[in-house]
């Protein structure tokens, strides 16, 4: 096992296996199954990306697909992110449903011309005459020297762009169901995974099912505070909240699962009970996802609020590569716990 893999594994808290819970799969296997089912379902779906056909198969997500499907439907690409993104847009506008996979969101920064200037607004600009049904997938990196250019969580850069949908799952169940929903969607959908979730295991039903895009879920129910987030940082929040029971603090922990469209109602519903809001995100705090959600709460749920809104994201700095600096850079369960305690004082 490469050392970085070993590190990711050591970061993963595996739930105690519960035989009553149905079939358990790991995160990447769930995604792999989603892609397999989709490719079997619709001949217009194709999967592309750098290294999708190599032995590691995009962290395992595309493993085995090249053996099962024609090489026209699962293929490696040149290192031409912006061009290939445009190729996907053009194919999608003409009856195909591309699923374009990237190792890291950092590489999507090369594709903003196609994503923001084209994919997102084609349908609107031509008055609904064409659609761009495509999925763009990338896995946020962290640790082992990922550093400033291999760890960026760029969801907040794309969230304001009209016409895009943004999905950020946190469980194998959602990863599969949201991938299938994204592929079925007639719009460009971005899926941001997190590398540190990929060794997680969880219940994953067989066959096709869809997790609705734009619907959050409660991961914990409580009374004192509402914690809202997505993806990997949610696992830290759960750790923090679970550790606060002794002190008599309980929380609603909401996994939004998709950032755009955003399930406002679940946030307001919870806030009407708790009156306290903590928003967390894997990306930069400034002008980020947290800021948007906090603003929505201030605008539309002001009267529910009993305390100032708090947010936890990344500092206004690039990611350092070294592990010591990283520990200072990333929020952890302790930080989240401390903020929740302060809010509840």
């Amino acid at each position, binding site marked *: 096992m490469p050392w970085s893999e070993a590190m990711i594994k050591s970061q993963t808290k595996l739930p105690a296996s519960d035989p009553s819970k149905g079939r358990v799969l790991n995160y990447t296997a769930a995604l792999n199954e989603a892609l397999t089912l989709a490719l079997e379902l619709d001949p217009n779906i194709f999967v592309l990306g750098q290294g999708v056909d190599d032995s590691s198969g995009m962290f395992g997500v595309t493993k085995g697909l090249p053996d099962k499907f024609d090489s026209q439907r699962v293929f490696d690409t*040149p*290192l031409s992110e912006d061009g290939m993104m445009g190729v996907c847009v053009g194919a999608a506008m003409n009856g195909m449903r591309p699923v374009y996979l990237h190792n890291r969101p950092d590489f999507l920064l090369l594709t903003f011309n196609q994503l923001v200037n084209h994919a997102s607004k084609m349908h609107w600009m031509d008055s609904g005459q064409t659609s761009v049904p495509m999925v763009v997938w990338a896995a946020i990196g962290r640790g*082992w020297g990922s550093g400033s250019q291999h760890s960026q969580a760029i969801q907040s850069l794309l969230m304001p762009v009209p016409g895009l949908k943004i999905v950020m799952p946190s469980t194998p169940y959602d990863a599969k169901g949201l991938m299938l929903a994204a592929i079925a969607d007639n719009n460009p959908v971005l899926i941001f995974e997190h590398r540190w979730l990929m060794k997680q295991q969880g219940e994953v039903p067989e066959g096709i099912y869809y997790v609705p895009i734009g619907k959050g879920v409660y991961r914990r129910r409580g009374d004192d505070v509402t914690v809202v987030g997505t993806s990997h940082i949610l696992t830290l929040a759960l750790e923090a909240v679970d550790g606060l029971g002794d002190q008599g603090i309980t929380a609603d922990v909401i996994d939004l699962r998709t950032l755009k469209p955003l399930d406002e109602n679940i946030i307001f519903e919870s806030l009407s009970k708790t009156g306290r809001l903590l928003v967390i995100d894997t990306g930069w705090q400034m002008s980020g996802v947290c800021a948007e959600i906090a603003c929505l709460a201030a605008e539309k749920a002001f009267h529910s609020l009993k305390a100032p809104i708090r947010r936890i994201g990344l500092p206004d700095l690039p990611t350092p590569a070294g592990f010591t600096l990283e520990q200072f850079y990333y929020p952890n369960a302790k930080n989240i716990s401390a903020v929740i305690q302060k809010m509840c004082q």
Partner: protein
Amino acid sequence: MIRFHYQGQGYYNIDLSTYEQAFLHNLYYAMLRIRRIEEEIERRYCEDEMKTPIHLVIGQEATSVGSCAALKTDDRIYATHRTHGNYLAKGGDLKAMISELYCRANGCVASRGGSMHLLDKKAGMDGSSAIVGGIIPIATGSALAAQLQSSDCITGVFFGDGATEEGALWESLNFAALKKLPVIYFCENNFYSVCSPLKNREPAGTRIDKKADAFGVNAEQVDATNVIKVYEATLRAILRINSGAGPAFLECIAYRWRGHSGAGDDSHTGYRDPKEVLHWETVCPVATFYNALIDQGLLHENQARRMEEMINAEIKEAFAYAINSPNPVYEDLNKFAYSD
């Protein structure tokens, strides 16, 4: 199946005695040094203390050494994720590099960059980017600055064959040719991008040098297992630049012996035939040059042994220095958010 065969001629017909012996020894020493440093990094990587990705240049040493031997200290170079060879050949400080790999406060970028972002400005190793193709326009901008400042600084930029699929390269070449910028593009073609062979990414029969040539940039294909060939091609490029003819592009062909990243060869995963690695090991840039020097009576085995000893001692010292160096502290994180 061997997909990519060596097509050069080694040192056949090259009379090395036209060069000064000290120069030849320096070239050999520099290549051997990079090889031994890479081997030591590789050996120690499994200890789990260098918490950084590594991209070893074993097999590709001659590109860095031959090119940097032709450049001046105050010429600037820029690099990619595969930085080690470029950094060392340009004169980058070894202790600062190893400290960076160990994520120490006294690393060359104080633990902010790791192995993919080595730089040593004193040596003219001016930076590197882990985004494929990202550094190429920046290096082109460095050449523009030199031109606008009427400086005689030449910029060299190193990148892989994968980067030739990025638009940024071709946009840069066009501009460099337009402005006749003092820049040399060193494309280190090792045939693979991670596990993708060229055939997955570029049409069969593509000649990267010919494409560059079509952009109006003087281009050559170079046997980059051969340090003298790289050196001479770089000298030709420099002469042309100095004559005002503008940028050059050298497609430097040499094989990556190890996996894309991490320690060891990864051929067993199936993307390339282990026989292909063995094939290229027979044209080892270090060994072929050594043999040529010995054959032509320009190096003594004793001299080579002394070089090994010096290199070993330097490596030992650098690793001990790095391992015993302090980690960064919290306050370090917030420094340099902006330039004063």
